[in-house]
């Protein structure tokens, strides 16, 4: 244990516990920054929803709630497995860690595939802002503008998350990353963050005003 610990130690640290604390502290600050990044989008949504309540009500009925709900379920399930990884890894539960990471990556990939199918159907319905947009009033285009940007930026984040999960999965499998490495916790934080963003996007883009 102490040997693995000293292998983890980097400059300028003299103490692994402190270094781990710093890694996760630094990452929390990064998440604060990410929250502000998405905050800009949420502001744009809030302002335009306020300006065009009717157009947003019309538009939200044209997103595909089936795909949206399936994807929500996928990500929530992946969060469960990520929690198992983040709790299991420091307790030296190797199998749990490896299987959990693989399932997370797989669920993330399925999410992107479902999203891709949904995008194709959206395009075939012409739900892309621009000339010939099928919905009235015009401001429905703003809703769909936000839909494409929000889901696109989220998908990009998820793609990065999947890559990170696959990398640490491989490194743990090859015993090149010790199970008590702070990297696993940090990737877990990122994964949960991306899930939580979806938890906000789902009601905004699929639920808000759909049945009213």
């Amino acid at each position, binding site marked *: 244990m102490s040997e693995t610990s000293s292998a983890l130690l980097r400059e*300028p640290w003299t103490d692994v516990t402190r270094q781990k604390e710093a890694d996760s502290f630094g990452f929390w600050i990064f998440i604060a920054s990410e929250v502000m990044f*998405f905050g800009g989008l949420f502001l*744009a949504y809030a302002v335009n929803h306020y300006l065009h309540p009717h157009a947003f009500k019309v538009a939200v009925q044209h997103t595909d709630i089936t795909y949206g709900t399936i994807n929500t379920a996928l990500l929530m399930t992946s969060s469960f497995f990520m929690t198992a990884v983040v709790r299991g890894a420091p307790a030296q539960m190797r199998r749990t860690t490896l299987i959990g990471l693989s399932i997370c990556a797989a669920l993330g990939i399925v999410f992107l595939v479902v999203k891709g199918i949904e995008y194709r159907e959206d395009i075939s319905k012409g739900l892309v802002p621009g000339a010939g947009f099928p919905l009235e*009033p015009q401001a429905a285009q703003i809703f769909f503008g936000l839909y494409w*940007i929000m889901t696109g930026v989220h998908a990009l984040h998820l793609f990065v998350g999947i890559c990170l999960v696959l990398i640490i999965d491989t490194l743990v499998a090859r015993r090149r990353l010790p199970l008590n490495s702070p990297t696993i916790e940090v990737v877990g934080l990122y994964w949960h963050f991306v899930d939580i963003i979806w938890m906000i996007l789902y009601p905004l883009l699929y639920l808000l005003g759909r049945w009213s």
Partner: protein
Amino acid sequence: MTDITLDRLPHVEPHATYLTEGHTLASWLLTTDHKRIAILYALTITGFFFIGGLAISVVRLELLTPHASLVTDEEYNRLFTLHGIIMVWFFLVPSIPTTFGNFLLPLMIGAKDVAFPRLNLISWYIFVAAGAVTLYALISGGVNTGWTFYTPLSTFFANGNVILAAAGVFISGFSSIATGINFIATTHMLRAPGMHWTRLPLFVWAIYATSLVMVLATPVLAMSLLLIVAERWLGIPIFDPTTGGDPLLFQHMFWFYSHPAVYIMILPAMGVASEVLACFARRRVFGYTAMIFSLMAIAVIGFVVWGHHMFVAGQSPYANLIFSFLSFIVAVPSAIKVFNWTATLYKGSITLKAPLLYIMSFIGLFTIGGLTGLFLASVPVDIHVHATYFVVAHFHFIMVGGTVSAFFAALHFWWPKITGRMYPDAWARFGAMTTFLGFMVTFLPQFVMGYEGMPRRYHVYPAQFQPYHVISTAGAMILAVAYLLPLFYLTWSLRYGKSAGRNPWHATGLEWTTESPPPKENFEHTPIVTEDPYFYEYEQHGGDEA
């Protein structure tokens, strides 16, 4: 002078420094030493400073005559946009934090390095890449939107490389955020034993406050630029008024970053001022705790004043009233700082060295900039002078008079620590005076012509404003000489300057307790801090210079 150097030679023992830890290019480009990364940043932003300066020199020459004489309208617009974008994002925002912040933060808190040294190096590479992309965009096709990228000009009407320039600025944001995270984590986690929060030098507090703003404001700029690119490139209407979008929303998002960005630029300068004043007045900074609270108050309140940029943009009168009130509030902590700096000098034992001269001009110019900011925070006055040279003069007093003066003060104050050499102080004092003179001649007339109605960003203007423009351009030439001057005598000092010793100014602070230049690991032993900062009253005027 030669005698002194000869006399001192036997006392100078060669030691391993961060500069002698490898002489290859790779040892610099792959370094994770915060001191070397600071040097890399310094060289890069110096390049950007002179590129941005060159662009505005052409603009100032053009403005000598009321009609177009040197460049076309389009070229003129591209030149001031280049100046704005380069100076804001590639000089002012990174200026003091990435150079002096990087170099000094670990030294001042008694650490070996920043919390994430590799991230520190990566952020420099991101910065260079962002700078290259932006510079290419600005020079190859040009951008004519001004640095503010206002919609719908930037999304529908502007010619040129708006998308690429926005992408470059977007990328530079990653560098800012990474640096901010690094500094926050370093300040929290790597302070030496005994270095309590209430013993931190004010420069560290300033860098800490700046980092908070960097981390929380930069992503909002990134999102607003992303939406601009989406609208211009993919036709996604968020701000387009013809589909019901709101151009004012862009201004809100843009200024939610860009107003706090002013504090990213000025807070580190305030930190430098406190360090330099205490040292050359031989006194503890007056109201140390109040200084900390005012730094943090500026960082926090700075987030809620952005609406004062939109008094005439169609914002509701209630919003105007609130933003006006909040903008007056943010002046209070800034004024506390000015009073405390002045009080630090009071009954001090003052030595007028170059760094102090730069800081004296910082205080004067910052005060003028701040007071004219109060004019602009008042809605009726702002309606009169909005988008005139009055505004241009105001923010140049803060950013150039404030930040750049403090940058030069820091350069002269810590040069002996960074290089181990002393520069000729007479030349430096001459440079400081010339800078102040050139600055005043350049920007004071701009207040007058702005008040009389000269709009900003105009290529041709009524002949009545010509005298002011001629004076302003003459001042800009003096300023150009003053900025080039240190390049010569500082470079000279690298080879011929006398050895500085550990603490040539007899200053307090951990950075002065180690060798100049410091060794790679900063300190032989981790220092243990037992006293409060700025313990000047009890200093015995000893040190290795006496």
